[in-house]
């Protein structure tokens, strides 16, 4: 007897939960033959707002985790991805990849998680500095995370772009609200399920699906988003973000990178989302500058 396939509902990922869009809307991406693949939530500005609230709530504790522990959790994400490899390959194929492409992208994605997991407790040493100053002070600069980062992920792939923009962000102790590729939303939500089972605290990563043109305005106008990563190559939207970001002087990073390339794997993506904090600490001049004391 023919079995009726049970189709999965692809919902949003906000604050560790999987709610539908508060607007109740959805859209239906098509496969290459023009058949509907699934119903996917079409996020509204209010969903974005809810996601920012969740991200803000999660930020404090996440940024205070020991970097080593953040590394462990990022590595755990890689482990969980590895375990569900088949599902990701399957969904990429559903969305129009061929077998080889799909396998290559999933493998690359897993390796990239491991790559950034390794950086969690190392980027600070590389980018921090003790600065020479002409007064009796120790002066040092260290990196502190920016806060809530809005990420608009690359449109042209289903997994590697998403992971390559999320990982540097959380690796450095930020929390984020991510708008997944409108064309390839399935793997984004399945990745959210991986995150939900990877010891990552609720709200550190929030995943929305929907239309970039509708939500881009919300990303730059929200006063509680501290930085925006735009990796989607729409010049018009990038310009709009740059103008709108002035409202609370958010940082904006427009990446025009091919994330499937190895060059996209670098710690500067972590450093981008950090502010430099410089501290002046007085030192007592017991015996004078040239003393051998």
């Amino acid at each position, binding site marked *: 007897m023919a079995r009726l396939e049970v189709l999965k509902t692809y919902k949003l990922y906000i604050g560790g939960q999987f709610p539908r869009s508060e607007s109740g809307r959805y859209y239906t991406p098509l496969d290459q033959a023009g058949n509907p693949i699934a119903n996917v939530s079409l996020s509204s500005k209010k969903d974005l707002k809810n996601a920012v609230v969740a991200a803000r709530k999660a930020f404090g504790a996440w940024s205070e985790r020991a970097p080593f522990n953040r590394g462990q959790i990022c590595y755990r994400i890689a482990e969980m991805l590895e375990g569900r490899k088949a599902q990701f390959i399957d969904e990429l194929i559903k969305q129009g990849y061929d077998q080889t492409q799909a396998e290559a992208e999933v493998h690359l994605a897993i390796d990239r998680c491991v790559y950034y997991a390794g950086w969690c407790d190392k980027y600070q040493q590389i980018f921090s500095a003790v600065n020479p100053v002409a007064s009796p002070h120790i002066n040092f600069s260290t990196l502190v995370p920016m806060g809530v980062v809005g990420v608009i992920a690359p449109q042209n792939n289903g997994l590697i772009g998403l992971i390559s923009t999320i990982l540097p962000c959380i690796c450095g102790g930020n929390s984020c609200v991510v708008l997944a590729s409108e064309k390839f939303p399935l793997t984004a939500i399945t990745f959210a399920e991986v995150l939900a089972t990877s010891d990552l605290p609720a709200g550190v990563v929030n995943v929305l699906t929907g239309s970039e043109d509708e939500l881009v305005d919300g990303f730059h*106008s*929200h006063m509680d988003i501290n930085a925006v990563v735009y990796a989607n190559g729409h010049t018009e939207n990038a310009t709009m973000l740059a103008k709108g970001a002035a409202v609370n002087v958010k940082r904006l990073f427009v990446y025009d990178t091919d994330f499937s390339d190895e060059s996209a794997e670098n710690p500067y993506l972590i450093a981008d989302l950090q502010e430099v904090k410089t501290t002046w600490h007085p030192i007592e001049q017991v015996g004078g500058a040239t003393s051998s004391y």
Partner: protein
Amino acid sequence: MIINTTQTQIPDFRQTPNVDKVGVEERCARFQTRSLKGDTKIDGLKRVLSMIDLTTLEGKDTPGKVRQLCYKAQHLHDAYPDLPTVAAICVYPTMVAEAKKALGSSGIRVASVATGFSSGQAPLDVKLMDTRFTVENGADEIDMVISRGRFLSGDYQFVFDEIAAIKAACGTARLKVILETGELGSLDQVRRASDIAMYAGADFIKTSTGKIQPAATMQVTYTMLCAIKDFYRKTGIRVGMKPAGGISSAKLALHNLVMVKETLGVEWLTNDWFRFGASSLANDVLMQLVKQQSGNYQSADYFSID
């Protein structure tokens, strides 16, 4: 304003009506489906601000902290024109004089938690002394806690007498009676405690101290509003309501206003008869108001911390 006094005709509190829990939950769920938009929302938000008892009840409170809170009460967000002030400042008895001085002639009242707050585990003499001290220091409102232990063991007479004695000690100060519903166990008990408090002379009944979870859930508040309605029908005396603890979002506060309006009517929608006991609600309401004005969702970074 009709002032409540200790009633002489009192019902048998063992016969207090039972509460239909399922019905209450269903009704509360329906209040939350209302959506207020535009000018109505702005009006509602401003009304919420005017009903807040801005509260600080911590062991680490200092006169400086109280002065700062009093300043905030008078200047909620100066960048936004024509905002109301909050209704009152709520502090510990030892901070009343400081708050009174800091508020001056602003018209903001000083409420204080007398009577061995928050457990209420003190002898009556101590509670009365606490109350008199607080009133003498200038408190306009007294928030007392009931003896939950006595109540739960069925000694309703004791609880009634205690409230009546404190009421007498309050003089002209209005008395708010805290039931600490999180410790009462069921809505039936909430209803019974509400009745006892109102017949004993409460001017306000209040859900919680803010120290125990759960605090002011909509179900509990609704049960207490219904008790107020029945008391008003029987005696013609208006009693106020103060949910406290756990109401930190503007949305939830607006749902509470809807609930008050639909249960008791518009007469209760002023800060004479309805208050929110809250410390962080004011900022969320302010953020919503500024959002309505500017169109941008706001960040706590741009509002005062306390």
